[in-house]
């Protein structure tokens, strides 16, 4: 590591000259050419030498004095550049539409976009499915053996994690939903809440995904 550097060792004049130079360079919004520095520090008679001196003083420090294309400037030492980056986790909540779509996927999987729309009664925006795929909670499972071979969606292990479910079958059934007041009234004949499953085995009418069904650009 760096040798101990004795700073501002010379006479008072030298100290003052270095103080002035470092203050001006520090406060400047951009690099300063030697001409600009000379204009700011008219008493300085040996600017080039002084700049080299200051550069040596700062050589092993957290900030270095560097000569860039348009002059001199202080910059963070190259090996400390990593300090100038920060990782941040931004927590987001799903929109109402996305949450409804996710719930339908969870209960009705494997399910196609058209089937989701049938349950919701409204169209599902492409953005909603993109966001759900981005959460990592929803995945493409396969393709339904139907005209157009639509993609089927299902949930992932990360989904179970995020919603504190031990298994997808822990999702409450019709009676539980009614008991919790989440569904009210008398279900009509034929109304059912499916028992969900999220395993990898494909349904009888599901084909595997095609080789080119990349995660990046799924043909929804």
């Amino acid at each position, binding site marked *: 590591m760096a040798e101990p550097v004795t700073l501002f060792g010379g006479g008072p004049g030298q100290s003052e000259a270095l103080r002035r130079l470092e203050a001006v360079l520090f406060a400047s919004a951009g690099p300063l050419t030697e001409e600009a520095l000379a204009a700011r520090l008219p008493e300085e008679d040996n600017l080039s030498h002084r700049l080299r001196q200051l550069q040596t003083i700062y050589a092993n420090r957290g900030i270095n004095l560097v000569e860039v294309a348009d002059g001199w400037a202080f910059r963070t030492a190259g090996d400390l550049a990593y300090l100038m*980056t920060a990782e941040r986790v931004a927590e987001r909540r799903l929109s109402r539409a996305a949450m409804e779509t996710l719930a339908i996927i969870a209960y009705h999987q494997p399910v196609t976009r058209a089937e989701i729309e049938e349950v919701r009664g409204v169209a599902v925006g492409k953005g909603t499915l993109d966001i759900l795929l981005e959460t990592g909670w929803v995945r493409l499972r396969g393709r339904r053996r139907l005209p157009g071979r639509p993609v089927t969606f299902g949930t992932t292990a990360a989904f179970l994690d995020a919603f504190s479910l031990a298994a997808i079958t822990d999702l409450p059934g019709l009676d539980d*939903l009614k008991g919790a007041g989440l569904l009210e009234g008398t279900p009509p004949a034929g109304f059912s809440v499916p028992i969900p499953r999220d395993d990898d085995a494909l349904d009888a009418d599901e084909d595997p995904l095609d080789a080119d069904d990349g995660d990046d650009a799924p043909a929804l």
Partner: protein
Amino acid sequence: MSEDPPHLRLVDDFEDPPRTPLEDDDMLHVDVAGFEGPLDLLLALARRNQVDLMKIQILPLAEQYLAFIKRAKDLRIELAADFLVMAAWLAFLKSRLLAPDENDGGADGEELAEDLAFRLRRLEAMREAADALFARPRLGLHLFARGAPEVPIIHEEKSYKGSLYELLSAYGTVRQVELARDTKMEKRPVFSLVDARRVMERIVGGHAEWLPLEALIAAMPSHESRRAVIASTFGAALEMAREGKISVRQSAPFAPLYLRSNGMDGAETNKDG
């Protein structure tokens, strides 16, 4: 006459009129335009005579102020109302200081004088504080920050959050459409004014002491909505006060309300606050 110095109202000028130096003993510079109200003028008069504001003598100060105002009047200088109100108040204070009235406990001249002295010291102190503050090294004038800051690059990772409840209620909302729904109109909780009044007449009527409104509310029959009970009890109290049956008292804004029966001589209605 109020016991506090008159409330002073003079919108200060933004252009900062120069403070009139009060150097001449005979106060030739009678110009109130330079003062930010009577307190400012009083402070200038006090400073002219005394360096130590801790020992302001209010009586001579009041006399000087009155002399100043008189002179301004003689010179037919138009004075703002505040200056005249202060003059009247100081004349009153002067009379109190010279001839204390033993029987009037409300307005002790010494206390009023000390109050005024305190205000003058405080104004002076705040002016000095402003000067001290603005004498400090200031960023951008005396001290400078790094001119070319290096802004950290932030990599943001998105993380989504959701609860099982949100998931299930979303699912419920979707599937509910398929279910026939029974709709029930919720009954609005009402506690009638008549009921409240009946209880109040019984309780307040049987009491000679001040009763807090809270106690009455607590004494009301149990009801699902406390807000409705409070509203009706308060309403009934106002009605009974209007009829002169009870008195209502409150010591300060938002302080508890007290009620008392006016008994037989139900004529006196005392309601303040």
